[in-house]
């Protein structure tokens, strides 16, 4: 069913907020999927090369499904939404646009993000916008493999040598502030919570996430800092305030499309 026909998204006051939330979901998956794909051919072992390529493919496929639903409300094809917008129109969290850096950071980022994504999908399952609730339920099953992958590597790095432990702790400390931004709300997100489209508010989701990642980090012997309350400080991808890293990423990602707009292959 076209998402625009759902009673909730027919309400003028909720339509824009829902479209913004769908873009945030889609942009997160697309941008992190693109970053994962940059490991193809360069990961530390062949298993990780295959794994991250596979995860990248899956995240970008999930982005497509969210863009389709956003397109029901906003108009435009998934390709238009993925490749045709300027950086300030993107709603992804800033953490995800950061370059891959080293393996520690990439693993830490995917661990923090995949847990956040799981909490977010939980908040959509059983909701009143049927085509979104069903999709969230499906994605939650598929994302379990991603969760296991990140957690297993995190534990491996934390337990290997004092140097690897120190490095993965440094990656955590470095990623932590921007990880809080994973839960920053899009415009009028509260209205979606009040209407029941999202079951829990962003602060409650962040607390839940903090409890989950905190327990895993602690059991791996790492120190989890405290979580913030309210909108996080600094850049804010959810309202389109991005770092220059996103501009560079999009320039590369859209370069083929821009050389021959509208080309079919």
């Amino acid at each position, binding site marked *: 069913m076209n998402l625009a026909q759902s009673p909730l998204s027919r309400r003028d006051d909720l339509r824009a907020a829902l479209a913004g939330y769908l873009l945030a979901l889609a942009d997160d998956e697309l941008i992190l999927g693109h970053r994962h794909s940059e490991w193809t051919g360069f990961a530390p072992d062949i*298993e990780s090369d*295959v*794994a991250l*390529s*596979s*995860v990248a*493919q*899956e*995240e*970008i*496929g*999930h982005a*497509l*499904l969210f863009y389709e639903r956003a397109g029901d409300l906003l108009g435009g094809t998934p390709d238009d939404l993925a490749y045709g917008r300027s950086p300030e129109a993107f709603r992804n969290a800033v953490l995800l646009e950061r370059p891959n850096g080293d393996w520690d950071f990439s693993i830490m980022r995917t661990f923090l993000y995949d847990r956040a994504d799981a909490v977010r999908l939980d908040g959509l399952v059983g909701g009143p916008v*049927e*085509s979104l609730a*069903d*999709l969230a*339920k*499906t*994605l939650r*099953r*598929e994302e*379990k*493999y991603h969760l*296991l*992958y990140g957690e297993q590597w995190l534990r491996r790095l934390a337990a290997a040598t004092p140097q690897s432990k120190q490095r993965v702790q440094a990656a955590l400390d470095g990623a932590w502030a921007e990880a809080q931004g994973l839960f920053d709300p899009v415009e009028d997100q509260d209205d979606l919570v009040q209407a029941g489209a999202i079951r829990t508010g962003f602060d409650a989701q962040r607390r839940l996430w903090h409890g989950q990642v905190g327990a895993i980090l602690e059991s791996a012997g790492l120190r989890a800092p405290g979580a913030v309350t309210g909108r996080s400080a600094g850049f804010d991808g959810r309202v389109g305030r991005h770092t220059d890293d996103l501009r560079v990423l999009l320039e590369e990602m859209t370069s083929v499309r821009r050389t021959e707009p509208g080309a079919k292959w």
Partner: protein
Amino acid sequence: MVTQAVPTEQAIWEALRTINDPELPIAITDLGLIREVEVEGARVRVTIVPTFSACPAIGVIQQDIRAQVLTLPGVEEVEVQLSFAEPWTMKRMTERGREQLRQHGLSVPPRLGGGEVTCPFCGSTNTTLENPFGTTLCRSIYYCRDCKNPIERFRPPSD
């Protein structure tokens, strides 16, 4: 009076049985992808349940269904829609589909999940997981300690 051919649901199911999955050597009906076939005069709607929602073969499958069903007499319009209302699980795959995957050299998990990983080459269960990710979203890689072969195992979405 000219009699207009009217497509039957049965004829459409027959046509669907001739379409193979692009990434697996079995029919999409044996894989259990088809949830519903609806016929309204010359218009046909086929609803499919993907194994993985991000499977890149979905677009090809939709095209194949459309092309195949359009060859039937009386069919003028074919819509292929995805449904996520119920999940795809191993229970949707037919016994014939499982046997064909095994003959193709894939290890296949039991209908109810879990179970030992049997080597499709030598039948040993002395196997170990090499990588939960493989050449497609629906495959993982194991290794047989007895015959020393790498094994591809069909991987359903997690429960």
